[in-house]
C-alpha cells in the first residue's frame, strides 16, 4: 500500500435516536452511541436486525423520528464530503469503466480531469486493480468490483467511513488480505470507521469496540471493548487467548440475541411486509 496523508477522523454522536419504517416497523428505540474520532467500531448482529438501517440513518438517507445523529456536531447529509459509504453490494455505475467509477466523487467536486485521474489511479493501485482501468464493471469479478468501490470511496478521503459487510462477497483468503489492508490504511489515515459484519472473527480482528445489536425494536444489546494490542497480525492475534475469549463472549451474545423474545405472528407479518417493501 502506498502511504497516504493522515486525515484524522470526526466524532460521531447518536443521541436518543428513534426510528421506524413508514409501515410502523420499529427498528430503533433510544439508541445512544458515541464514536470517538479515529475509532474503529464494529457492529455485529443477526440478519434483519437493522444493521444496514443503522448505517443509512448515520449517512442521512433516512431521518430519525426523534433524536439526533451528528458528525462534528452537525446533522449528517449523504452529500457530506467527509462521509464515505461502502455498500453491501458494490454499486458501481455500470456505464462507467473502473477508473471513471473511481474518479466519480472527485468529478462531482469539479476537480480537473488530470488531477482526479492521478488520485484515482493511486487509489486503484492501492486496492490492487492497476491495469483494470478501462474495464467496465460487468467485466470485473465480484471481489474486484467491491475493491473498486472501496477505492471510489477512499478518493474523497472521508473522515467517517461507513462499511456495510464490505468483504462478505470475497473468499476467505482475499478477505483476510483486504482486512489487513484496511487496517494499514486506517493506521495511516486515521479515519473513524463504522464496520458492519456477520463475522465475529473479522469484528474482533479489526475493531476497537464491538456493538452487538438487539432484535428490533431495540438498539445496542451489548458492547464489548476490544483490548487486543495493535498493530495486529492475523496469525498472532488469532493465537492469543484474548481473541478466543472475545470470540466465546460474542458467540454467546449473538445466541442470546437470536433467542430474544421470539416474534409473535403480527410482528412476523410486519417484518415480512417490511422485507417486501424494502
Amino acid at each position, binding site marked *: 500500500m502506498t502511504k497516504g496523508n493522515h486525515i484524522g477522523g470526526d466524532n460521531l454522536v447518536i443521541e436518543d435516536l428513534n426510528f421506524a419504517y413508514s409501515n410502523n416497523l420499529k427498528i430503533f428505540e433510544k439508541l445512544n452511541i458515541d464514536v470517538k474520532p479515529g475509532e474503529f467500531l464494529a457492529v455485529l448482529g443477526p440478519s434483519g436486525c437493522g444493521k444496514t438501517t443503522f448505517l443509512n440513518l448515520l449517512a442521512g438517507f433516512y431521518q430519525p423520528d426523534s433524536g439526533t445523529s451528528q458528525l462534528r456536531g452537525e446533522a449528517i447529509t449523504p452529500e457530506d*464530503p467527509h462521509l464515505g459509504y461502502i455498500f453491501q453490494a458494490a*454499486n458501481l*455505475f455500470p456505464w462507467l469503466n473502473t477508473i471513471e467509477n473511481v474518479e466519480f466523487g472527485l468529478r462531482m467536486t469539479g476537480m480537473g480531469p488530470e488531477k482526479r485521474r492521478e488520485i484515482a489511479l493511486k487509489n486503484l493501485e492501492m486496492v490492487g486493480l492497476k491495469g483494470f482501468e478501462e474495464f467496465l464493471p460487468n467485466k470485473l469479478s465480484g471481489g474486484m468490483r467491491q475493491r473498486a468501490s472501496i477505492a471510489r470511496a477512499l478518493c474523497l478521503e472521508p473522515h467517517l467511513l461507513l462499511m456495510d459487510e464490505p468483504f462478505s462477497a470475497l473468499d476467505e483468503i482475499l478477505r483476510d488480505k483486504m482486512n489487513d489492508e484496511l487496517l494499514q490504511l486506517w493506521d495511516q489515515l486515521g479515519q473513524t470507521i463504522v464496520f458492519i459484519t456477520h463475522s465475529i472473527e473479522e469484528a474482533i480482528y479489526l475493531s476497537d469496540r464491538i456493538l452487538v445489536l438487539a432484535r428490533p425494536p431495540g438498539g445496542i444489546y451489548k458492547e464489548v471493548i476490544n483490548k487486543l494490542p495493535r498493530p495486529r497480525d492475523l496469525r498472532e492475534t488469532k493465537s492469543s487467548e484474548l481473541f478466543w475469549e472475545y470470540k466465546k463472549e460474542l458467540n454467546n451474545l449473538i445466541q442470546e440475541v437470536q433467542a430474544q423474545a421470539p416474534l409473535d405472528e403480527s410482528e412476523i407479518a410486519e417484518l415480512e411486509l417490511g422485507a417486501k417493501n424494502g
Partner: protein
Amino acid sequence: MSAPAVEMKQDKKLDSDKEKITGWVNVIRNNASWSWVSLPSLFLVWMLVAIPFESYILPQPWEVADEAWNEMMFPTVSEVMDDDGEITIIPEADRPSVWKFIAKGEPSNALAHLFRGELWPHVGWSLLEEVGGFGAAIIFSVLFGFLAGFFKGFREYIVPLNGLFMAIPPIAWAPLMVIIFGLGYTTIVIVIFISAVNPMILTIMEGVLQIQGQEVRAARVLGARKWQLFLYVYLPASLPFVTAALRIGFSQAWRALVAAEMIGASVGLGYMVQTAGEVGNSRLVLLGITMIGLFSYLFERTLFRPIEKRYEVWRLE
C-alpha cells in the same frame, strides 16, 4: 522404395484437403448467419407466386424494378408539349435523362431532371412528415417520460391517458384531423405524433423507474447534487431505454404515417399506394410497399441498431 513415398504424398494431399474442408466448415460455422437468405427467399416466393398471373395484375419483381427505375425515379422524357399544347415526340437519341446530363457534366440539369421522377415527391413528403411527427414525439416523450418517472403524481395522472390513446388505433384520428386541418402535412403529423408519443412516454418512464435506488445512493454519498444526479446518473442510466423508445416510436410513427396518408394526404408513399390501387396499377402499389419497407429497414439498420448495440455492452448480469 518409391511406392510408399508416393502414398505418403497422397496422404498428405488428402490431409491438407481435409484441413481445407474443415477450415471452411469452421469459417461457415463461425460466420454463417442465415439472415442473408431471408430477403432473396422472399423475392423467390414473389416470383413463383407471380408466374400464373398476368403482368398487370401481379408483376414480377424485375418489372416493378424496371418501372421504378425508368419511369418513377429516372424518367426519360419522350415527348414535349409546346405553348400551344402541341405534342411532339422526341427522337430516341435526343431524349433527355438524368444519366445523359451526368455524362455531359451538367449536374444542375441532372438534378432538375431528377425531380421529374414521380416517386421523389412521395418519398420526400413522407420523410418530412415522419421527421415532423416523430421529432415532436421525441421532445414530448423525453419530457413527459422523465417527469412521469420522477413524480408519482404526474405518473398516476398520465398513465391512464397513455393507455387510452394506445387502445385507439391512431388511424381513427385521421378523419377528424382531415375535417379540422384538411388534407396534408398537419393532419399526417398529428396522427403520427399521437401514435408514437404514447408508447415512447411509457417506455422512458419505465426506464427511469428502473434506475436503481442504489446507484442514486452511491452517487449521493460521492457528493452528487441534484443536477449532477440528473446529468451523471439518471441520464446515462436511461440512455438504453431512451433508444428503445426511439426505435419503438419510429416504427409506430412510420406505420401510422402510411395508413394516415391513405386517408388524409394528397402526396406521400401511402397516398401513392392508395391511388395506384384505385386505378389498378399493381406495379406502383408494389413499388410503394417496397419503398415503405426499405426505408423502415434502413433506419433500423443504420440508426437504431448501432445506437442500441452501444448500450448493450455495459449491462450487468
